[in-house]
């Protein structure tokens, strides 16, 4: 990792006990890799599904079996913690996320944690406004569940910070790419290698990319810097690229120009026609309404497997992404720079260079046998 995560920074975590949710995922996984560089740190990670813990298990991490719904487990796990990194998100229910967040915030207060870092998202600002975007920009009206859920979560955290004195920080990362990024790296690469990557003709917008290690730097700075408390920070990389360039970089790396441009209308029409999409949209409400929480995870996992495994991978933007790809918003990261000391080290070309090494490593065999 770069100079930001120098030895002094890692020493700052020595002797600390940290609790990470989402440690089996993309951001939480890399965060733990970097935290583990500290010599005398105790890392606890909430693990919902042991099958996903292969990367995490490389380290001396205390795995706490449970999900965001297990109040007792969360309270016990947080009891002796100094720092909490809440990176997990339960995609099945925003109500559940809010309730888990309250539980964690209460338990963190009780434990007297030094810092509670919550990972929100740029999505809270969607649909994105034109021009520059900073933390003072209001949230526009939306009916997108994900964005609404994140906004609710931010309200809860800020409320705990201002009313109850929870030393919380909110980070709002933009488009996080790099090794193991399912949405912004693996998915387009798989589509390029095994099918088609469809973009809209109208995708003339600007991408605000952030390489994973820059985001992890920001997370660690947020955990250490006192001036971060009670604040929200947009976290993006040092530069912007057109969306078409963002995806073209992947096509260059894998050596396949399997891009297809369609009109927005055509894409929306195809999305409506996709049988699997129909099946999923039919099953999801049933799963949410009638099935127990544990079974819900299994079934939703099965549905996402269906999505991955059936036929060639055709990655077509959904309605939210179509909007995102048209947006020319440029995210301003001055607040993170000024208050956190955040100094992103991965311009897009450098981040993609590192990502290219990952892609060749992770997809080498698929490249050879498409």
């Amino acid at each position, binding site marked *: *990792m*770069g100079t930001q995560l120098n030895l002094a920074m890692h020493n700052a975590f020595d002797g600390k006990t940290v609790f990470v949710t989402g440690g089996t995922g993309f951001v939480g996984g890399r965060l733990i890799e970097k935290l*583990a560089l500290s010599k005398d740190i105790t890392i606890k990670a909430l*693990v919902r599904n*042991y*099958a*996903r*813990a*292969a*990367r*995490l*298990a*490389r*380290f*001396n*991490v205390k*795995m706490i*079996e449970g999900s965001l719904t297990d109040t007792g487990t969360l309270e016990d796990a947080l009891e002796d913690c100094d720092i909490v990194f809440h990176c997990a998100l339960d995609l099945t229910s925003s109500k559940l996320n809010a309730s888990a967040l309250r539980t964690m915030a209460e338990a963190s207060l009780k434990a007297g944690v030094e810092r509670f870092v919550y990972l929100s998202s740029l999505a809270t600002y969607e649909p994105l406004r034109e021009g520059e975007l900073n933390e003072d920009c209001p949230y526009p009206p939306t009916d997108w569940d994900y964005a609404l859920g994140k906004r609710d979560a931010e309200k809860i955290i800020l409320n705990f910070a201002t009313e109850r004195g929870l030393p919380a920080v909110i980070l709002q990362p933009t488009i996080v790419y*790099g*090794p*193991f990024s399912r949405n912004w790296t693996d998915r387009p690469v798989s589509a390029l290698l095994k099918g088609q990557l469809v973009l809209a003709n109208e995708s003339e917008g600007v991408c605000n990319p952030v390489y994973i290690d820059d985001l992890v730097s920001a997370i660690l700075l947020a955990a250490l810097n006192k001036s971060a408390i009670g604040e929200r920070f947009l976290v993006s990389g040092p530069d912007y690229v057109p969306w078409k360039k963002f995806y073209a970089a992947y096509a260059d790396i894998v050596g396949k120009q399997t891009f297809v441009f369609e009109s927005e209308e055509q894409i929306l029409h195809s999305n409506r026609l996709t049988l699997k999409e129909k099946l999923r949209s039919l099953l999801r409400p049933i799963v949410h309404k009638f099935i127990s929480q544990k079974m819900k995870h299994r079934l939703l996992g099965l549905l996402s497997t269906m999505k991955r495994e059936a036929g060639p991978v055709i990655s077509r933007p959904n309605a939210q992404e179509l909007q995102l790809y048209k947006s020319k918003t440029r995210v301003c990261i001055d607040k993170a720079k000024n208050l956190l000391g955040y100094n992103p080290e991965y311009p897009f070309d450098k981040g993609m*260079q*590192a*990502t290219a*090494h*990952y892609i*060749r*490593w*992770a997809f080498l*065999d*698929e490249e*050879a*046998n498409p």
Partner: protein
Amino acid sequence: MKSLIKTTHAHTRSKSLKSVFLSGTLPKGSNGTQLPGLAVIGCGQIAESCLLPAMLEIGWRPALLVEKDSTQLHKLAKQFGAAAACETIDKADLSDLDGAIVSLPNHLHEPVCCELLKQGIHVLVEKPMARTSDECASIIAAAQSGKAQLGVAHVYRFRKLNQWIHALIKSGIAGPVKRFDIRVGNPFSWPVKSASIWNKHQSGGGALIDVGVHVIDLLLWWFNDLNIIEYLDDSESGVEAECHLTLSTDNGASGVLELSRTRQLRNTVIIDCEKGSLEVGIFDGSIIRAKGAACEFSYADTMLSNMPDEPWNTLFVYELKDFANAILESHPPLVSPSDGARAVAFVESCYSQRKPYIYPWDLKEGA
């Protein structure tokens, strides 16, 4: 039944590979109908998905199931018609047992196998045989003291294609092996029910001792010897998800074995001999390509062109039939204790000379 088993202990009888290759039939018990009383100790995923269905397929009902998760225990006992079920081995009645399959977490292999073997109960132990060579030695000693058969579940030995490759190399028809290249990996998805597999003390290691030990067993069997040139893995005081082995054989072949728990690799073995080459699927037994003498070689009336398809689950059927044969006819199982111990010793040797595996994206930035 048990008394009959105990009267015949013929460890010296050697079984030809060919008989295993061809047979696959299950001998009947002494009374012509009865199969040995068999316990399955540890009823996690491997028992549920592979071992018990294979038993069912050959009409072999378990005499006893032991599993600490009572819900799982009773579900499987009902599903597979077990005569008895118990949550812990110390509370189980072992008196009528002839044999047991031990499919517990790795750290329990040694104590449980030893206890069973000392009582003269024949054991088929899941791979790896144990975590260390010392534990393997202790299990072997217990088998000797109890005069019981001990088999190790390196199930890929039962694939006819792998037996054919063994015969091809031994025959020398394709000339000496020059190079081999194995890449085995899938994003880990085994539905583990506890953290035991991720606990270094309990599992003994990561990808290498888990799926890797299967491959190492095959390589040691095919090539007779294997030297470690370099071993790299990505463990940081935990268990490795990635490892890379550079190998050689005494006959001058060089090779690479790469294992991953995070990546979809090709899951094939490539073997280049002087007069022919071969690429086959390690798990599915598919024949990807073959050239030269490999295309002409015939073993037990089987060539690559008429190699039977063998779904994964059939391998467990063969394995159980072999174990039943070992119990009923008192000859050693196909995969012997020394084979199992040899693979574990090799793994141990890799871990003892471990060098760090740096991810290429970290390497390039100088981290």
